[in-house]
């Protein structure tokens, strides 16, 4: 029953302005029921704003929304959910301390002092969990689940409320390849059931492989809205280059597929890690006796399913946690137990994997954020006289070099779109050539051209003598950027892949513990 002629979601002339930024300008789209409809565009093109308006997070300044041909005006996500429209955001909305079941009940339970409908929800959840392939302990805290499982719990929340329209904002950004495939299989299933899927993504290959229709936004406006294929099994009628051209506009620079490989500079490793063992902090695996080295001029990638020990590795290298065993050397100097501020002084720079949690202070200005971590390096005056003028100048240089869209260096950080925030966080780590760059998902939430800019900046730094360690869940990123890729599985580095073996399938298999591999 897919592809009915009914329009599930229609917007007419949606406008939304945030201060100086016109985020949405006269947006009119029509999403047919039972289709997967992709929404693409650069960072700051207005995708997330539009989805938030649909979901009732905030109202449009003008324009109307129709759901199933009925005019609607949601004042909150709860109202949108009640009407059958739900969204899974980039940052999941689960409460880590509550159990999976309690998270499912949250927001959908009865009123006041009525007992929680645990039995009823559990029964329905068990049914639906089979459908979407979720296997989880219902009484485990939601924070203990892997990213893929958390995403499924979010989806389950929407299905329990019987959502007919499902919005996904960058759903595959942190999923390992196999889970991403399973996720799309699920989307097709939803479409076949007559549900409607709105898919916000930067990955054009996903759009071409799975979407029925696509809407392209640029600078807050619709520049194209067109079918990708006639029926779900047909080949796409559009190619990636056409889409990319629409996204960046006539003047924009198209990203090229390229391999950025470097050469080792010198014989001495910059970073030398031996038998590193860390108790689990944020994920469940911990780190169990990991050894590797990174040379100047080299980008070393870390692949692995989320929760395989990446968080512990990063924390131990940055100096945020004391290892339980093993040693870390930087340029021959042992720093296993040295604190973070000391390592910063030795040129260790860190791009945090979660910028809201660790990377930035949202209520501060762009300039104040740009100085974070560098504020004791002497570039902004002395301890007793910190120069905000120099902070602003530094932020201005980041804004120019990384093409950050910001009203000014003094604007609050929260006024920037997610992608532009990320550029500031990346920029401050790379403005000076670091000795060792530790990058956790450095291009999370960035569009193709920004991703390319960040990759080039990392490469340039390495050519100038830096060593880089990049943790990413995006295999394509690791394959594009990294000379060697270490694969983590259950806290162990099961293999280090280079040369001929640097292939998607090889790494994908190692990630799930399915390959013979050397190191384990």
């Amino acid at each position, binding site marked *: 029953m897919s592809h009915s002629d009914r329009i599930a979601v229609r917007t007419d002339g949606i406008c939304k302005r945030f201060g100086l930024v016109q985020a949405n300008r006269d947006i009119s789209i029509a999403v047919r029921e039972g289709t997967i409809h992709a929404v693409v565009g650069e960072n700051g093109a207005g995708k997330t704003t539009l989805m938030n308006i649909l979901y009732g997070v905030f109202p449009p300044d003008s324009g109307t929304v129709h759901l199933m041909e009925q005019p609607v005006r949601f004042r909150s996500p709860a109202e949108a959910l009640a009407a059958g429209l739900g969204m899974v955001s980039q940052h999941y909305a689960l409460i880590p301390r509550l159990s999976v079941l309690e998270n499912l009940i949250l927001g959908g339970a009865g009123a006041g002092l009525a007992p929680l409908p645990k039995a009823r929800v559990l029964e329905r959840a068990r049914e639906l969990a089979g459908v979407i392939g979720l296997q989880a302990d219902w009484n485990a805290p939601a924070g203990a689940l892997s990213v893929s499982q958390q995403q499924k719990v979010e989806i389950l929340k929407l299905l329990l409320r019987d959502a007919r329209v499902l919005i996904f904002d960058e759903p595959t950004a942190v999923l390992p390849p196999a889970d991403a495939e399973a996720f799309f299989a699920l989307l097709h299933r939803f479409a076949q059931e007559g549900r409607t899927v709105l898919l916000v993504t930067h990955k054009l290959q996903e759009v071409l492989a799975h979407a029925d229709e696509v809407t392209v936004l640029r600078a807050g406006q619709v520049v194209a809205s067109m079918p990708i294929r006639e029926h779900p099994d047909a080949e796409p009628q559009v190619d990636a280059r056409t889409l990319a051209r629409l996204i960046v506009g006539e003047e924009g620079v198209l990203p090229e597929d390229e391999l950025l490989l470097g050469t080792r500079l010198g014989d001495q490793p910059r970073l030398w890690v031996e038998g590193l063992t860390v108790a689990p902090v944020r994920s469940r695996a911990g780190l169990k006796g990991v050894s590797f080295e990174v040379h100047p001029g080299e980008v070393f990638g870390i692949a692995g399913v989320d929760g395989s020990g990446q968080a512990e590795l990063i924390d131990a290298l*940055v100096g*945020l946690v004391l290892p339980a065993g093993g040693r870390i050397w930087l340029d021959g100097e042992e720093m296993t137990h040295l*604190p*973070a*501020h000391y*390592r*910063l002084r030795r040129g260790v720079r*860190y791009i*945090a994997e979660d910028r809201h*949690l*660790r*990377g*930035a*202070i*949202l*209520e*501060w200005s762009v300039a*104040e954020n740009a*100085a*974070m*971590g560098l*504020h*004791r390096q002497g570039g902004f005056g*002395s*301890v*007793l*006289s*910190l120069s*905000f003028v120099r902070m602003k100048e530094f932020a201005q240089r980041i804004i120019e070099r990384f093409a950050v869209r910001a009203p000014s260096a003094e604007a609050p950080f929260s006024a920037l779109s997610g992608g532009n925030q990320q550029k500031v966080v990346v920029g401050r780590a790379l403005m000076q050539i670091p000795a060792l760059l530790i990058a956790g998902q450095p291009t999370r939430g960035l569009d193709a051209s920004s991703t390319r800019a960040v990759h080039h900046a990392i490469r340039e730094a390495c050519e100038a003598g830096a060593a880089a360690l990049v943790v990413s869940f995006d295999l394509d990123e690791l394959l594009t950027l990294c000379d060697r890729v270490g694969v983590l599985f259950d806290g162990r580095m099961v293999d280090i892949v280079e040369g001929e073996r640097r292939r998607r399938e090889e790494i994908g298999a190692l990630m799930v513990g399915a390959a013979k591999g050397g190191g384990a």
Partner: protein
Amino acid sequence: MKGTWRALMLPVGVLLLAMAVAALVIVLAGSPPVPALLAWWEGALFAHGALAESLLNATPLLFTGLAVALGLLAGQFNIGVEGQLLVGALASAWVGFAVSGLPPFVHVPLALLAGALAGAFWGWIPGILKAWRGAHEVITTIMMNYIAIYLTQYLVTKVWKDPNSMSPQTPEALPSAWLPVLVEGTRLSVGSLIALGTALLLWYVLKRTVWGYELRAVGANAEAARAAGVRVSRVIWGSMALSGAIAGLAGAVEVLGVHHRYYDQFSPGYGFDGIAVALLGNNHPLGAVLAAVVLGAMKNGAVYMQSVTTPAVPREITTVVQAVIIFFLAAMRFRRRTGS
């Protein structure tokens, strides 16, 4: 400029609202509101010697307001300002009466320093408990308040009691430890200038030094600060100690400038008034100056109002005003944080 304007509008609006609630309470208590409010106003500013008394009232409020604001900026809710003030006051009183033979320019700073150090120590304990063990400062500072209240009570009734008096109080401090009077014929002392200087210094430290930058970073997002190499636990106990030092100075200045001795229960709750000052001053040192002057004048004016109105409007009406201020501003902060 627009931001400054907006930052001023909210406290002024809340203040007017609080005054309106106070007027309503006056009506309910059976007094005609207009003469009462006029008397309040007159007592605060225009009655004989009113201005100096208002500023005198504002001085301890400014210190405690700064102490609370500093804690809040570092993400610490220091409810222990009252206890830190008490130990600071007693320590400076002791230096005042027990150390003799010093010229004023040595004795006064020494007594002030003793007050600041005692307060700092009293703030440092909950700070270190939080930094090392994660003990919540709201609980521990309240506990420290009780320890301070009973410890000072014990000391002034048993150990350092003035032998010539029936009341639980220390001997009078030597005149060499008294803060010089600022305006002849008033009780206004150099202590008010020290409070103002502390506000300016604090403003500079917070805005223009690496320490202030790191302190604000910890207050806004401790996890991000840690990732940026800030030694978070050091900032936590350091800010609590500094907050306690300012609270201790509040006590020292009251003792050395006004009473010239420590007596039991001399503080009518200055430490808790500091919460209202910090909130009304928007956690800004210079905002705290304005807030302290306004609330100090209000307290002073209320004494006059009580004496001239019939039936008398009790001066405790200022507590109502403070409560309304805290209620509204705390609610606004919460609203802003949850972003609704």
